[in-house]
């Protein structure tokens, strides 16, 4: 444990609680002293402190001890009164303000980390002016009548030798009613120790007069009490005292030099001697004596059992006394006052035991008397005495707390005392390392007065920091509180200081609300002090505060903008967080040999393009000989890795800007920061690399000199000829993320580095962001970079000289189209440069959608050329499936200059849904001296295909004739608003003849939305019937088309064989079927329809819109190689009473195979069980043939009735086990059929009863003759099979 006297509190007490000497002087005394710039008291002060006075003291006990440290406090009589609170306040304010001025210097220094500063002791940590402030604060409660240590112990009367009648003056001085109230109103004994001092000014040169007066004094007041002090021995007043004793007592350094300028060393020694003499020979002995006298008195009246009883009894009687706040009035000769004086004198003379015993004695009395203020004062002193004795800690604390709360209880009178008491209490706790408790005490002292509470809170904050372990958060909180209090009393500098240190706690924590507030306040305060740089620094921290409310964000931004505007210049900030640059959205689009016609084309994956261009671009092996050679010649190895771009062509950079705030912000002057170096030497590259490295370090927040140079160069040469930059301007609403495309266009060859982006926020803050931060992310986003390039390479471009570049555009490309619609489009290719390009090729990703037409000459109607007979196909023919999508432009089509090349394209919306149609155009450059010999233009268009009409076909055999097929066309309009008019249905190929089954009684074949329509057709294969001559004839007739629409009967039919439709049909066949050579009997249908419009005016316009639907590979025949038709009568009238009925039937069998067959017809008599089994078998085999055909209206009715009848019949019959009919003749007939031949087989059946019969109880077994010269390998199909009989209904009626 440290000696209590050496602690901060101990030192403070030995300085504060010391004997007071009242000084009475004449005005001439003061005049003399003022020559030195000092008042009389000030002149004495430096010498009133003794560190080693070494005076023997004997108080109450007989054991003397030696007093080492001693101090006297001098006060003018006029000052010995309760200090004026207002004046005290002003003094305190002055202390704070002066301290604040001093501290300004270290504002700009870096924030010291609190956690690092832990090792510093308290004295270093907390500002020194705390001591001064605390002293001043404690002083406000001095000279209270309830405490005796502020009462003057002695009185020093000073008269100048110049005064007239000095001896009388002495008398006058003490007798005037200028004496302090304490002496006059009986609070203290007016008979104080008097000392007389004659002050002589040596400049007056009258030493004789002085000594004469002294002797006169001595005779009047007694020789020991009179002294002479001669000062101002120096005449010139130029003494430069090395260690001026007064300098430390005066705050103003400039004046300090002149202090005591007339005092020689002898003068100073004389003053020293005077005070030492005064203390040792007069004051201390006087106090000793008084202690002894008082002690004796106290012992006689209060000590001992009898006195205590008496005292208690006497006190009891006073209980009725009114409870005034000050308690009863005690005069100096009351025993209570005497005890208090005794205690205080003992305390001042360091006899703490004696002091404590007296304090304890009196404390009880005051409590009983309800003299609360006095009680508190005694408790306070007890606490301090305990501390100085280092006795019971608890007692000390208890006493202090008791005193503190009692002072508070007293009210306004005790206010100042409570503060002083609190300060001592806190010091007491601090001395014992109880910092937490001390902090709480400081917190309790902080009163309404903001200034005082600010300082107290700040002291409390230091306590938290000094704790073990330190409480940083409380430290921060208290500093913030204190800062707020400082702000209230306009001590902005102090507020900044406290907030700054608090910030070190909040920095980096996620308590954003607190942190933002701290930064904001600091920013505001710095701004109010005119320190804009610091203010901006803090404001920047809070700009991107997503979590704050909208109003707060607005406030922050507004204040920030205002602040920047106040500085009067545009602020440049690295890594400005408003808006946030989304580096993950960063995309660089550049064109080397690959060029893009539209942004949509850029979005397509590189792999897709590559697969498209695979067979277009020259093979590597052929190109190697000259291409690589050229490259090695022109490009150093290092550059091979960097991207290539062409001078004059823009490099586009997509940058995502995100507004983190809820309020809109406006961004302007957005442009890229680029660096261009003309030469391509490798040394230059290295330099560039190092520059890039520097940049990345810049991104960390330090503004590099080089970079600022770079930026300033950017700004300086706006028309920098090596590259041009685009500028963008936009505003972001709250939370919005916007991707902005910025471009840089290099003008000359060399190396271009894209370094970063800059923008201007609200027109006054320029933000920069380097791209060098997060490269792992954007490599993923940039699919087009093949190798993993180092970050600096990615943004580095080798600029090659300007090359021709084709621009492609398709006019009027629809974004939406109905399924099946045909569009005519025009492709326009332009070459702006003067160099021609050649060897153009084009490839289309979806040839099903797009067909290349011919060279466009003039506008013509879209559908017009489709009309039969008008179409003239260009020479370009589709040679094979693989090459279908590759189109070679004619050799002579060379584009250059102003003249664009127009080429027509046909678009057909073939498949539902969204689709991206990609086209790539390859072209070679005439000028082969460059790195690139060819370039590729990539075009991409997006098309959304909406459903229009859904058409389906059902084909079935005509049960009556073998050569005919019935076709049911179902059409459903799937659109929501469009109605269509069906124009024609064509069967593709010459061998088909299509006719309508029903006569056209529907006047207009228009299909309204949602409507469905069925049409029936008869399809006849005429191939076999025709000879070659006939074919030619039929070709002209074109019986394969059926016109369905009746509107404008003059309309011509569209040609589906030789027109463009055929090309699309070709594609459709390819996509719909597995192979082009399908079944020879498969039929393809083309349905052509138009939007329906009733108004005739728009006839032409509507005519130009045309839709086609292609349904391919509709199989006409079953998988079975044989077809047969049962022929016979339908209704027979027979008289069963006569005999059973014999019916002759005829079966016609057709072999559709190219091979000979043998067919067995097996008949069997129907039984109940066999019906079911056979029927299930038959469906299994012939399902394909019969699907969906049964709903033919006529057949349907018959079948239903027959079913009912049949089942009834079967029920009737089955119990009898008699079959309804039997086959007559042999049960098996065999027929041989040649390839594609027909045979007729006669059959007979016998009936026994009238009814409706289903004659299907037979099977056809066919067998392939393999014996022919055909090799078995070619016959992939099965060589034998079974077909169940098809239903044939026969009605037999009883004839009457």
């Amino acid at each position, binding site marked *: 444990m440290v000696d209590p006297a050496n602690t901060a509190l101990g030192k403070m007490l030995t300085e504060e609680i010391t004997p007071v000497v009242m000084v009475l002087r004449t005005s001439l005394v003061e005049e003399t002293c003022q020559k030195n710039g000092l008042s009389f008291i000030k002149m004495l002060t430096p010498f009133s402190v003794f560190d080693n006075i070494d005076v023997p003291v004997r108080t109450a006990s007989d054991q003397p001890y030696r007093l080492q440290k001693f101090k006297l406090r001098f006060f003018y009589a006029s000052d010995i009164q309760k200090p004026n609170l207002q004046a005290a306040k002003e003094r305190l304010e002055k202390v704070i303000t002066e301290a604040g001025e001093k501290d300004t210097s270290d504002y700009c220094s870096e924030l010291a980390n609190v956690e690092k500063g832990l090792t510093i002791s308290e004295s270093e940590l907390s500002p020194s002016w705390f001591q001064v402030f605390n002293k001043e604060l404690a002083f406000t409660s001095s000279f209270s009548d309830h405490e005796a240590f502020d009462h003057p112990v002695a009185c020093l009367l000073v008269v100048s030798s110049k005064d007239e009648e000095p001896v009388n003056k002495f008398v006058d001085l003490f007798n005037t009613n200028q004496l302090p109230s304490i002496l006059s109103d009986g609070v203290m004994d007016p008979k104080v120790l008097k000392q007389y001092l004659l002050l002589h000014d040596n400049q007056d040169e009258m030493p004789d007069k002085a000594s004469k007066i002294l002797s006169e004094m001595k005779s009047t007041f007694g020789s020991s009490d009179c002294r002479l002090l001669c000062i101002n021995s120096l005449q010139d007043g130029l003494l430069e005292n090395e260690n001026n004793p007064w300098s430390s007592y005066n705050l103003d350094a400039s004046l300090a030099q002149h202090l005591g300028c007339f005092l020689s060393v002898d003068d100073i020694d004389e003053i020293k001697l005077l005070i030492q003499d005064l203390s040792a020979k007069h004051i201390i002995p006087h106090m000793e004596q008084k202690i002894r006298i008082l002690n004796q008195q106290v012992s006689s009246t209060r000590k001992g059992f009898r006195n205590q009883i008496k005292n208690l009894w006497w006190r009891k009687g006073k209980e009725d006394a009114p409870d005034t706040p000050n308690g009863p009035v005690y005069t100096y000769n009351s025993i209570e006052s005497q005890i208090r004086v005794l205690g205080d004198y003992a305390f001042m003379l360091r006899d703490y035991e004696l002091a404590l015993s007296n304090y304890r004695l009196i404390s009880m009395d005051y409590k009983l008397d309800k003299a609360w203020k006095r009680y508190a004062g005694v408790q306070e002193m007890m606490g301090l005495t305990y501390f100085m004795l280092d006795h019971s800690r608890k007692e000390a604390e208890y006493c202090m707390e008791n005193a503190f709360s009692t002072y508070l209880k007293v009210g306004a009178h005790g206010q100042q005392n409570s503060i002083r008491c609190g300060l001592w209490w806190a010091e007491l706790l601090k001395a014992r390392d109880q910092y937490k408790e001390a902090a709480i005490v400081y917190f309790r002292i902080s009163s309404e007065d903001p200034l005082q509470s600010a300082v107290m809170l700040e002291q409390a904050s230091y306590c938290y920091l000094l704790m073990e372990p330190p*409480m*940083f*958060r*409380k430290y921060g*909180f208290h500093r913030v509180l204190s800062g707020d209090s400082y702000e209230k009393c306009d001590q902005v500098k102090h507020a900044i200081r406290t907030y700054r240190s608090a910030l070190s706690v909040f920095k980096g*924590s*996620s308590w954003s609300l*607190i942190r933002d507030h701290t930064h904001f306040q600091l920013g505001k305060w710095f701004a109010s002090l005119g320190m804009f740089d610091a203010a901006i620094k803090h404001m920047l921290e809070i700009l991107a505060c997503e979590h704050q409310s909208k109003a707060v964000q607005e406030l922050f931004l507004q204040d920030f903008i205002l602040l920047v505007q106040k500085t009067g210049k545009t602020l440049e900030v690295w890594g400005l967080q408003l808006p946030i640059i989304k580096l993950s959205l960063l995309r660089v689009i550049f064109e080397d040999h690959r060029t893009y016609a539209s942004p949509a084309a850029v979005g397509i994956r590189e792999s897709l393009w590559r697969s498209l261009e695979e067979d277009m671009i020259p093979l590597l092996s052929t190109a190697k000989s000259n291409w690589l050679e050229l490259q090695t010649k022109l490009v150093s190895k290092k550059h091979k890795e960097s991207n290539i771009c062409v001078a004059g062509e823009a490099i586009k950079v997509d940058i995502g800007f995100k507004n983190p705030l809820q309020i809109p912000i406006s961004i302007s002057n957005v442009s890229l920061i680029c660096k261009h170096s003309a030469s391509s030497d490798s040394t230059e590259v290295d330099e560039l690399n190092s520059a890039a490295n520097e940049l990345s370090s810049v991104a960390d927040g330090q503004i590099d000199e080089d970079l600022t140079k770079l930026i300033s160069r950017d700004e300086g040469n706006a028309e920098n000829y090596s590259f041009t930059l685009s500028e963008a301007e936009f505003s972001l609403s709250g939370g919005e993320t916007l991707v902005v495309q910025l471009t840089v266009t290099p003008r000359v060859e060399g190396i271009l580095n894209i370094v970063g982006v800059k923008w201007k926020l609200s027109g006054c803050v320029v933000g920069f962001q380097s791209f060098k931060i997060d490269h792992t992310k954007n490599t993923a986003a940039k699919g087009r970079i093949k190798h993993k390039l180092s970050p600096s390479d990615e943004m580095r471009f080798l600029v090659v000289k300007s090359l021709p570049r084709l621009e492609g555009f398709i006019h009027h490309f629809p974004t939406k189209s109905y399924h099946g619609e045909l569009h005519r489009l025009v492709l326009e290719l332009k070459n702006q440069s003067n160099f021609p390009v050649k060897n153009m090729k084009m490839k289309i990703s979806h040839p099903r959608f797009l067909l290349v037409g011919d060279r466009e000459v003039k506008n013509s109607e879209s559908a017009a050329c489709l009309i039969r007979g008008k179409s003239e196909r260009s020479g370009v023919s589709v040679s094979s499936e693989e090459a279908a999508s590759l189109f070679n432009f004619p050799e002579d089509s060379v584009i250059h200059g102003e003249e664009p090349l127009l080429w027509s394209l046909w678009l057909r919306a073939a498949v539902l849904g969204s689709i991206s149609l990609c086209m790539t155009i390859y072209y070679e450059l005439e000028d082969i001296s460059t790195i690139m010999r060819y370039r590729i233009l990539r075009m991409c268009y997006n098309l959304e295909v909406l459903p229009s009409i859904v058409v389906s076909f059902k084909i079935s055999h005509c049960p009556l004739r073998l050569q005919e097929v019935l076709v049911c066309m179902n059409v459903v309009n799937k659109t929501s608003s469009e109605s269509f008019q069906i124009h024609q249905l064509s069967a593709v190929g010459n061998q088909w003849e299509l006719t309508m089954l029903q006569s056209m009684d529907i006047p207009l074949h228009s299909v309204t939305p949602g409507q469905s329509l069925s049409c029936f057709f008869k399809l006849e294969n005429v191939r076999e019937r025709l000879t070659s001559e006939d074919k030619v004839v039929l070709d002209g007739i074109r019986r394969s088309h059926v016109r369905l629409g009746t509107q404008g009967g003059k309309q011509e039919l569209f040609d589906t064989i030789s027109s463009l439709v055929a090309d699309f049909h070709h594609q459709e066949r390819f996509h719909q079927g597995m192979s082009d050579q399908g079944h020879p009997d498969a039929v393809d249908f083309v349905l052509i329809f138009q939007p329906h419009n009733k108004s005739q005016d728009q006839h032409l316009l509507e005519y130009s819109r045309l839709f086609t639907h292609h349904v391919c590979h509709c199989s006409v025949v079953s998988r079975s190689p044989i077809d047969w038709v049962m022929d016979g009568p339908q209704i027979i009238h027979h008289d069963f009473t006569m005999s059973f009925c014999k019916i002759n039937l005829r079966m016609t069998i057709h072999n559709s195979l190219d091979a000979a067959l043998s067919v067995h017809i097996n008949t069997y008599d129907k039984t109940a069980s066999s019906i079911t089994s056979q029927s299930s078998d038959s469906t299994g085999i012939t399902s394909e043939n019969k699907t969906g055909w049964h709903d033919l209206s006529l057949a349907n009715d018959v079948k239903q009735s027959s079913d009912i009848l049949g089942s009834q019949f079967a029920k009737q019959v089955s119990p009898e086990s008699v079959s309804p009919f039997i086959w007559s003749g042999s049960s098996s007939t065999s027929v041989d059929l040649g390839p594609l031949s027909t045979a007729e087989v006669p059959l007979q059946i016998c009936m026994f009863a009238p009814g409706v019969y289903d004659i299907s109880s037979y099977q056809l077994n066919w067998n392939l003759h393999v014996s022919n010269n055909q090799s078995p390998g070619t016959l992939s199909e099965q060589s034998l099979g079974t077909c169940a009989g098809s239903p044939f209904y026969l009605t037999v009626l009883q004839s009457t």
Partner: protein
Amino acid sequence: MIVCVAVVGQQNNPLYIQSFTEADDALKLHHIVHCSLDVVDERVNNPKKSGPMLNETFLGLLYPTENYKVYGFLTNTKVKFILVTTDLDVRDADVRNFFRKFHAAYVDAVSNPFHVPGKKITSKTFAERVSNIVKSFGMGSTG
């Protein structure tokens, strides 16, 4: 009346902080909650002071400020719950009960597979549930 509740993560980062006053004193309450973490740390680091119960999650009254009382609760995963109330005499049982419910709500909220551990709790359900718990606080003692 409860004026503020907070969930503070392992790194003393705020996960959820909600005040229930009309006045604009969010900053103040943030400060109070932030400060109380010091006391939580102190209690955790000096277990002998925190009482005989070794596995006690309820930390009790953390510190009384001028107008508020701050209670704390520490889960096994070192997540802290802080309660700031203006009631001057609060029964410990009530506070314990409150923290138990609050803890349950928190556990449910962080069990959400879409919740990122260590990030702020943004669940509306959680907020609603907490406000219900807050509303019902002290009802048990009166009724």
